């Protein structure tokens, strides 16, 4: 009996020793590797891969979950039957995917950052261009609205760009670009129509300067686009004043009350001072001339304008310096400038009013 017990004990000892040895030598779970994989996933999420490379990071996370499941499954097996190689392979694939997500995210961010930087400059230039050349023009409401919305979207994009939220920047910046391009195109087309009369304007200006030279007398030229009133004497430019016009100064005057400043070759018909004018001093010109009257009749006949009369009492007068176009179609100078102008004029002095003395390309490079 004693021998049997000793034998049993020895057998038990050998069995346990064998099991312990097998256990000791059997595969160990790749916990360290899985921890590293998890850190790789965290790094990927930190790089905002969730936003920029959602599909890749989702795949990496799925692989990591699979690795965990495989680990669990292997641990449920008898220890000497466990094989952690599939777990290791899956974890490595998850790490690779996480690294791929980081690389792709960084590449996408760099690409967006560079392209958006360029686009921001482009939109800023368009906005500046619009502000410099078109913002103060009497454009239609839509063009102004589009410009303002573009400006707001642009400013919002700039703020988002500063905090590197490139995905937010993209949509707003594209919208800002679309709107400002639309406004610039509308304004440019509007002005292109306006500038179609440039050859006539240039001819009028040349004729007026020539008249001044030939007659050794003074002549006035008003450049509506430049908002300038030039005084020529003996064919030479002697004075230059800032001028304010009617709010609808783009285009010719068509009828009474249209708040447009006429374009044409006129002359001073009356000099007004004191009680004769409410604008300090005024030079009445012969608007409408015969050409204006004929154009008015044609426009009324064709139904293009209302039959309100062509208007009259167009003057160069004082009271200006408000910084806006406010007259009913007259040309307003400051009272000081009226005093200076007064010295050069008399009844009959030519007054040529043109849309511009320069081409649109000379003005804004387009």
């Amino acid at each position, binding site marked *: *009996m*004693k021998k049997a*017990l000793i034998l049993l004990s020895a057998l038990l000892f050998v069995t346990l020793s064998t*099991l*312990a040895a097998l*256990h000791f030598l059997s595969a*160990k*779970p790749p*916990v360290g590797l*899985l*921890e590293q994989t*998890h*850190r790789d996933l*965290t790094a990927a*999420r*930190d790089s905002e891969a*969730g936003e920029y490379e959602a599909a890749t990071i989702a795949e990496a996370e799925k692989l990591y979950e699979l690795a*965990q499941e495989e*680990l*669990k499954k*292997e*641990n*449920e097996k008898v*220890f000497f039957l*466990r094989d952690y190689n599939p777990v290791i392979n899956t974890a490595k694939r998850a790490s690779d995917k996480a690294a791929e997500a980081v690389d792709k995210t960084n590449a996408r961010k760099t690409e967006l950052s560079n392209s958006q930087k360029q686009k921001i400059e482009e939109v800023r230039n368009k906005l500046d261009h619009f502000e410099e050349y078109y913002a103060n023009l*009497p454009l239609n*409401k839509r063009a*102004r*609205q589009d410009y*303002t*919305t573009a*400006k*707001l*979207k*642009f*400013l*919002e994009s*700039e*703020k*988002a760009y500063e*905090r590197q*939220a490139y995905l*937010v920047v993209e949509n707003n910046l594209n919208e800002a670009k679309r709107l400002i391009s639309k406004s610039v195109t509308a304004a440019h087309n509007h002005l292109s129509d306006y500038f179609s009369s440039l050859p006539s304007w240039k001819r009028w200006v040349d004729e007026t300067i020539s008249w001044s030279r030939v007659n050794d007398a003074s002549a006035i030229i008003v450049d509506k686009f430049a908002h300038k009133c030039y005084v020529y004497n003996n064919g030479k430019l002697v004075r230059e004043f800032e001028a304010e016009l009617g*709010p609808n100064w783009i285009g010719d005057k068509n009828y009474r009350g249209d*708040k447009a400043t006429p374009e044409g070759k006129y002359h001073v018909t009356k000099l007004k001072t004191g009680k004769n004018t409410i604008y300090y001093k005024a030079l009445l010109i012969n608007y409408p001339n015969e050409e204006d009257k004929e154009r008015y009749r044609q426009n009324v006949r064709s139904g293009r304008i209302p039959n309100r009369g062509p208007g009259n009492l167009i003057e160069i007068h004082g009271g200006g*310096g*408000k*910084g*806006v*176009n*406010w*007259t*009913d179609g007259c040309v307003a100078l400051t009272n000081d400038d009226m005093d200076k102008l007064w010295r050069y004029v008399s009844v009959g002095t030519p007054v040529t009013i043109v849309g511009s003395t320069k081409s649109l390309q000379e003005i804004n490079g387009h």
Partner: protein
Amino acid sequence: MKNIVKAFLGVAVAAVMFTSCAKAPEVEINNAKAAVEAVKAIEAARYVPAEFNALQDSLNAALLEVENQNAKFALFRSYKKANATLANVMTMSEQVKANTETRKEEVKAEAQQALAEVTTLVNEVKELITRAPKGKEGKEALEAIQGDVVLVESFLAEVSTLINNGDFLTALDKVKAAGEKANGLKTELEAAIAKTKRR
């Protein structure tokens, strides 16, 4: 002889008892996972990313520790370390939850304050419009500015919606943009008013 048999039985019973005690902490694991999910649901990853990542790392470490123990011979398993980590996950998740709420409130307050400031600015612009030169003097310019104010106000209405939806960062971008535009309008109006006064 009897003593030897008793000793064998004793060892066997002790071994069984020992094995029975070392069970994987399933309840604690489920609780910890639920706590992390709850924190994720309140956008902790967005507002306190570092803390949220640390929380996830802790949960992961606990789960791996459980599997590490599961891989051992039953007699040698110990879930003490895993339990401690899981308990820490529960504590951390409470902290992260509180910090997320605090950060959210901070950003929300920042956005609301910015919105209030720009709203005041827009009201100042509106007040300046009433004082700006009227009549034919600058009527067109005033109408254009009024149109711009309407657009700025519609922008601010979008800000309110964003704040209500919890998108505070986008709300801040928008409110700052509206503020910049409103400031431009204010300067424009002040210049026009000053010009009128000089005449």
